[in-house]
């Protein structure tokens, strides 16, 4: 069976993939691998590929899971790729926070890179900048308002 894995957004194809009786085997880049989980109580204890290592896996977040294994750390998913939507001109909040300052007004002409508003989160200020030249069409929040991560803060057309 052929299977696609996404590691930090990059796709990797394996063939001859099989997962049964606690054993996973597959071929990647021309080499055959086989591993099993030894059922380590606190996380996974995996044996295969000529070594044994513990691994920890986070819960699903935005369609991905964090995998930590012998010093490696990666975001992973399998099957279909997780797309992060990003629409040009619509400025999203990178994280939950509070509107600290609104710099531009609706109707203002802005150049790419101009600060439109400032978000305060985790004791730091983050400038939300125009991602293209245009006119501020809408500012969705006022100073002091709390916003969720990903919320559309302003739009430029």
């Amino acid at each position, binding site marked *: 069976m052929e299977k696609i894995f996404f590691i930090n957004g990059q796709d990797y194809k*394996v063939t001859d993939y099989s997962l049964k009786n606690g054993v996973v085997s*597959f071929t*990647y880049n021309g*080499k055959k691998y086989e591993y099993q989980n030894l059922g380590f109580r606190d996380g996974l204890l995996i044996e295969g590929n000529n070594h044994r*290592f513990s691994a*920890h896996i986070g819960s699903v*977040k935005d369609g991905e899971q964090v995998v930590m294994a012998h010093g490696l750390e990666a975001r992973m998913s399998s099957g279909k790729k997780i797309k992060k939507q990003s629409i040009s001109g619509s400025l999203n909040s990178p994280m939950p926070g*509070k509107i600290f300052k609104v710099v531009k007004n609706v109707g203002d002409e802005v150049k790419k890179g101009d600060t439109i508003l400032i978000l305060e989160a985790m004791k730091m200020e983050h400038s939300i900048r125009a991602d293209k030249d245009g006119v501020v069409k809408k500012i969705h929040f006022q100073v002091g308002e709390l916003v969720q991560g990903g919320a559309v803060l302003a739009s430029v057309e």
Partner: protein
Amino acid sequence: MKIKKILVANRGEIALRVLKTAKEMGIKVVSIYAEDDKTLPHAMLADESYSLGSGPLSETYLNQQKIVDIAKKSGADAIHPGYGFLSENANFANLVESSGIIFIGPTAESITLMGDKSGSKKALEHLSIPMIPGYHGDNQDEEFLANEARKIGFPVLIKASAGGGGKGMRIVHKEEELLEAIRGAKSEGLNSFSNDRVLVEKYIVNPRHIEVQLMSDTHGNHLHFWERECSIQRRYQKIVEETPAPNMSQELREKICQTAVQISSGINYRGAGTVEFILTPNNEFYFLEMNTRLQVEHPVTEMVTGYDLVRFQIMVAAGEKLPVKQSDIKQKGHAIECRIYAEDPDQNFMPSIGKIEKIGSPTLRDTRLDCGFNDGAEVGVNYDPMLAKLIVWGEDRKTSTQKTIQSLDEVLFLGVKTNRDYLKRILAHPAYVEGKTHTHFIPQYEADLKPKSFTDENIADLIAAFSLQGISRPTATGVAVERSTPWTTLTGFRN
């Protein structure tokens, strides 16, 4: 006066840090917590704990009157402010002492004196402490300041007098940027610290940040506990600290430490303090500022000198003499502290949030994790994104570096994006290994510090781990059993 009960006016790892020493000394501890912190260790491990309610910081950890009222109600005879929050607030120190409670820290006068960057430099003039060429005066006219900057010569630094943490700071490389930078620093100072006063200084290219740990009692003893090297910074905040400073002659080390003691004795300081210096590539050093509190990075000093600085703070506050002499205080081996932050170094250090599914703990000898969280805790946007400090001691710098890299793999903070892997990349970098640290280390080596690409073997291991989650070993009958992952049930408490 004997201290029998301490209220810790802080949260997280530093609240626990103070709590531990107090317990070792047989002193009762009162903790306080905002409602959104009520399941964190600091809210659970004290002898008594009181809610500050909810709301903005001004209503909780910064609510001076509320904190003093709790201290009185609980019968605490002293307050330890930790770092941050009210630790360098002279009004608070005054309020505490005028309420008949001991403030475990310096006098309000010392806090005020050192809190204002221009004021402190003026006050130290008569002690002949080396200062960076600059203007720290009262004339705040933009054109006048610009002229002072031109006299010093570019590059210059414009800095809000009351500033800190990089706020209200501008580096100016050429004439055209000058006036805008002065205005920018002034307005940021006004917005962040209600003070638009700025100072102008010579900007030193690739300096090192060296600081000296001080401790003074009220019997005229002004001791130093040697230096710390804290050059590795991002967003003007330290992320890796160590002691002893690498590539420093013993002669220079002693000169810097002596200069720091000149300051603490010169202003008749009390308690724990830190003098920060800038060290140029030519080994000239200049006074930067004095922090009138226990520093985040104090544990490296504790690891290398073997003394408990919080214990000394408490003893000094109780009016006791420091039990050590300067000649007793020696540096043994090497210690490194890494600050683990909830942030994504590969996305311009953007803070991250989430639920900590599993913290993990370092297992090697002489390692210490100062952490204020427990498994299952939520990291939100209301507080500083520092999750923990990993402190590692080794016989020498090479050993402590290797042990730190190893230990970083054991503190997972699964569930929240952290700078853990990035810290490993810093410690493995050849310039770090050679001890060639300076405050622009991170921008200078930006390209080298990017994530390493995975080998085919790495990819295979990751795919295996991902595939085998929730599937345990084949049973005797040869059939694997599905099991619930431990993360769903891991809400156990640790500190």
